[in-house]
């Protein structure tokens, strides 16, 4: 930590450094791009993984962005705060898209919500809202009157052009137009209503025969404005939106926000609650990967697999239902512990599950993994190298399939994960098959974690006493957990009230969807389905 501090003060003397669990450096916009280059390329720093960009509106104190970086070499984290130049009408920050590939999309998101323009970003369009949307919704002065942006059944306006803002040598910022598709491209529209996009995702795909030339991804068909709603809710109320982002990893997401609020409020939870939370996380990981295998095989045409994998998932849902009272949106973890105690049959049911799981995994391998058609479809299709995976911030099983050991449970252990014995599954093949097999093996590892805990659930309170009206001190916190699909992060800023000042969700699926264009180029249309399926993005998680 201290040598990073020294290093930064030598590189950029005017940087303001603020210590904390994650060090925060404030950098002026003019020096930002060069500093970012040093952050990435310097061997001592080497922050090569851009976790998220948090857009911020501090009202009269101006607007800006907080960048979260992590180093895959040193396993350290840092945040950088950059205040936007220009006025409120047109705030400006320099883009870092040339250093981290994923920044292009993250910056578009910030532009969409806050109207902060990133100079040199090659694609300054809105990301989630349609091009005629008035206002920037996450600004504090946004007018939510439904008459300004009414529900319209007319088709939205569509354009083949995008904006690029560049800076002339004398410091003037200009807007240009850039073509996305050439006039003679054969553009096929895949989605938003399409069986293989796993929800309402839309790809505009330029194809040459069966070969894909370029994909332009359109998001926002299920953008529900969760971040804005959270600013109007009290802390316990914000929790239930975590169920509805990635509905398969409802437990890990809940876990993340609960830990974050508990850390901020200084609440210590019982060991029993921690064990229960980890058990639920791992159970939902198995259920999620089961459904992934099923739907992925269905995308590839092997429909029958879906029914076999759903058998295990139904069994897990039964266990969940008995304890949490719901099949999908559990709302189980709460601030201070969990909502209710375990069902008396919980231990017995989980043992029954652990008994049938190995035989089921063996069956899946027998039916599908070894099949010659499946292997031809998946091997060497959608190769994502380790370097690209880091640059595109593709985490979770996808990143681990590319040889990047990015499991938060190992590199930044939270809860009781540091005491547990399990292996991080990493494969080096980098293709769709690797991503598939990583998930298959992770189910085994999750079962291992559950087996260690299930007979040793300590006695004690399942929930500690928490004040009825919860107020957090002024400050900001950032927490990541390993969701079923990758690194899930939440940034929380409090102004001392009962509601969050800003709650930013960094979902793992947005990078996974953004990387599709990069890895499908030159592949076939059928491979788009293979690749999209293997990346396993959940659209409400992307759109929030």
């Amino acid at each position, binding site marked *: 930590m201290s040598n990073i501090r020294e290093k930064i003060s030598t590189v950029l003397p005017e940087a303001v450094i603020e210590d904390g669990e994650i060090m925060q450096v404030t950098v002026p916009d003019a020096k930002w791009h060069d500093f970012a280059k040093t952050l990435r390329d310097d061997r001592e720093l080497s922050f090569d993984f851009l976790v998220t960009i948090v857009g911020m509106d501090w009202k009269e104190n101006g607007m800006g962005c907080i960048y979260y970086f992590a180093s895959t070499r040193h396993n350290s984290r840092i945040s950088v705060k950059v205040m936007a130049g220009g006025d409120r009408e047109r705030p400006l920050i320099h883009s870092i898209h040339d250093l981290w590939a994923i920044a292009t999309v993250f910056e578009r998101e910030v532009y969409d919500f806050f109207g902060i323009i990133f100079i040199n970003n090659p694609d300054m369009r809105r990301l989630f809202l349609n091009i005629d949307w008035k206002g920037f919704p996450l600004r504090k002065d946004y007018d939510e009157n439904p008459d300004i942006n009414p529900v319209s059944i007319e088709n939205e306006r569509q354009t083949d052009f995008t904006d690029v803002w560049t800076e002339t040598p004398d410091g003037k910022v200009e807007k240009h137009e850039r073509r996305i598709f050439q006039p003679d491209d*054969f553009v*096929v*529209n895949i989605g938003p209503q*399409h*069986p*293989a996009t796993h929800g309402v995702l839309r790809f505009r795909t330029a194809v040459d025969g*069966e070969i894909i030339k370029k994909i332009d991804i359109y998001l926002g068909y299920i953008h529900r404005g969760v971040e804005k709603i959270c600013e109007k809710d009290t802390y316990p109320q914000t929790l239930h939106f975590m169920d509805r982002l990635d509905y398969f990893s409802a437990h890990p997401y809940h876990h993340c926000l609960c830990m974050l609020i508990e850390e901020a409020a200084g609440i210590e939870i019982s060991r029993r609650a921690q064990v229960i939370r980890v058990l639920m996380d791992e159970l939902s990981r198995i259920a999620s990967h089961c459904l992934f295998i099923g739907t992925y*095989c*269905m*995308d*590839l*045409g*092997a*429909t*029958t697999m879906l*029914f*076999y994998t759903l*058998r295990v998932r139904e069994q897990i849902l039964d266990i969940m239902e008995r304890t949490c009272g719901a099949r999908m949106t559990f709302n189980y973890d709460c601030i201070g512990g969990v909502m209710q105690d375990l069902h008396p049959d919980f231990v017995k049911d989980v043992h029954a599950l652990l008994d049938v799981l190995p035989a089921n995994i063996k069956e899946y391998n027998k*039916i*599908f993994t070894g*099949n010659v*058609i*499946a292997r*031809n*479809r998946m091997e060497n299709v959608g190769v994502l190298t380790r370097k690209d995976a880091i640059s595109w911030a593709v985490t979770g099983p996808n990143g681990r399939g590319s040889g990047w050991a990015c499991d938060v449970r190992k590199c930044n252990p939270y809860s009781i994960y540091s005491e547990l014995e399990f292996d991080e599954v990493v494969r080096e093949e980098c293709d769709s098959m690797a991503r598939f097999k990583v998930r298959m093996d992770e189910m085994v590892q999750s079962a291992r974690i559950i087996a260690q805990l299930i007979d040793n659930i300590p006695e004690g309170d399942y929930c500690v006493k928490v004040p009825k009206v919860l107020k957090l001190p002024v400050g900001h916190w950032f927490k990541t957990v390993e969701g079923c699909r990758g690194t899930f992060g939440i940034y929380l800023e409090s102004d001392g009230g009962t509601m969050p000042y800003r709650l930013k969700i960094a979902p793992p699926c947005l990078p996974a969807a953004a990387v599709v264009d990069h890895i499908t180029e030159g592949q*076939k*249309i*059928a*491979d*788009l*389905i293979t690749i999209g399926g293997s990346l396993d993005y959940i659209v409400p998680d992307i759109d929030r």
Partner: protein
Amino acid sequence: MQDLSVGTAWLHSFLTGYIPEWAAVTLECLLIGVGLMLLYAVLALFYILFERKVCAYFQCRLGPNRVGPWGLLQSIADMFKILIKELISLNHVDKFLFALAPYLVIIASMLAFAVLPWGNGLQIIDFNVGIFFLLAVSSIGVLGILLAGWSSNNKFTLIGALRSGAQMVSYELSMGLCVVTMVIMAGTMSVGGIVEAQSHLWFIFSGHIPAIIAFVIFMIAGTAETNRGPFDLPEAESELTAGYHTEYSGIHFGFFYLAEYLNLFIVSGVAALLFFGGWMPLHIPGWDGFNAVMDFIPSPIWFIGKAIALSFIIIWFKWTFPRLRIDQLLTLEWKYLLPINLFNLVLMVMIVTFGLYL
């Protein structure tokens, strides 16, 4: 073995006793036409239910069981629904071709019914190039699919149609070569002749190695020819919504739906004809008692039973394997099946020349 041609001949002589021959023939044609239509509908409905049930059992489900006893009336309910469903007329399509395409597809499979050996003496027309006629008419179907894809004025259907064109043209080659292999064995192209040639033993046994190779290739090519999984690329749901028939609604879609199942029946029927003796009961040389017992089972039951058993295998493929990609599909045909097939043809010629068959 009951010769059912006795009955048809009696009908003919009965009719000619009362009306002039030209009228009798016209009446017979009309009767056959109506019979064929009925058979066509019944078989298609049966096949749809059959597939739904079979796939349900593969997937540990029950399948349709609420409409009628054991769900038997499910596909009849579907038929009523689809008959009166709206036919959407689209702007910006080639209206004539758009309407023509489903009829081409259905006519192709209907014509193929004419030469299938339904039973001893129950063949509608038996002429000297019967099997050749069958190959010819079944390739009209691809024209219908291409037209459907092209005239819909939709990018998905166009890709689906082009895929299907490439696929069906390629696999027709394999199918043709398999047929030629077995024609060499039989020494005739007439359907009746091929069945007769298997009266002592089915070709799959008497032709041993080359016949078995030809059978395997025929089943693969037949599955591809009928656009069924793992070769269902033209209508790959997860890629192209519904492929070439995305824009069709109501009974026009129903025609495509029916034709898919009937082509399945035709392919299995031809496989039964070429390798399992058509309507010919199972005869084993030397076991006269056994052969006599087998002859008691009526010949139409033999033929339809064989066809359904073979269709079961094709359905089994579909619900087990993932789908191939278009380039892998064409590689399979041109780099593997075709050379093997040509080699197999030579092998068969040698076996026939040297009399090495059983």
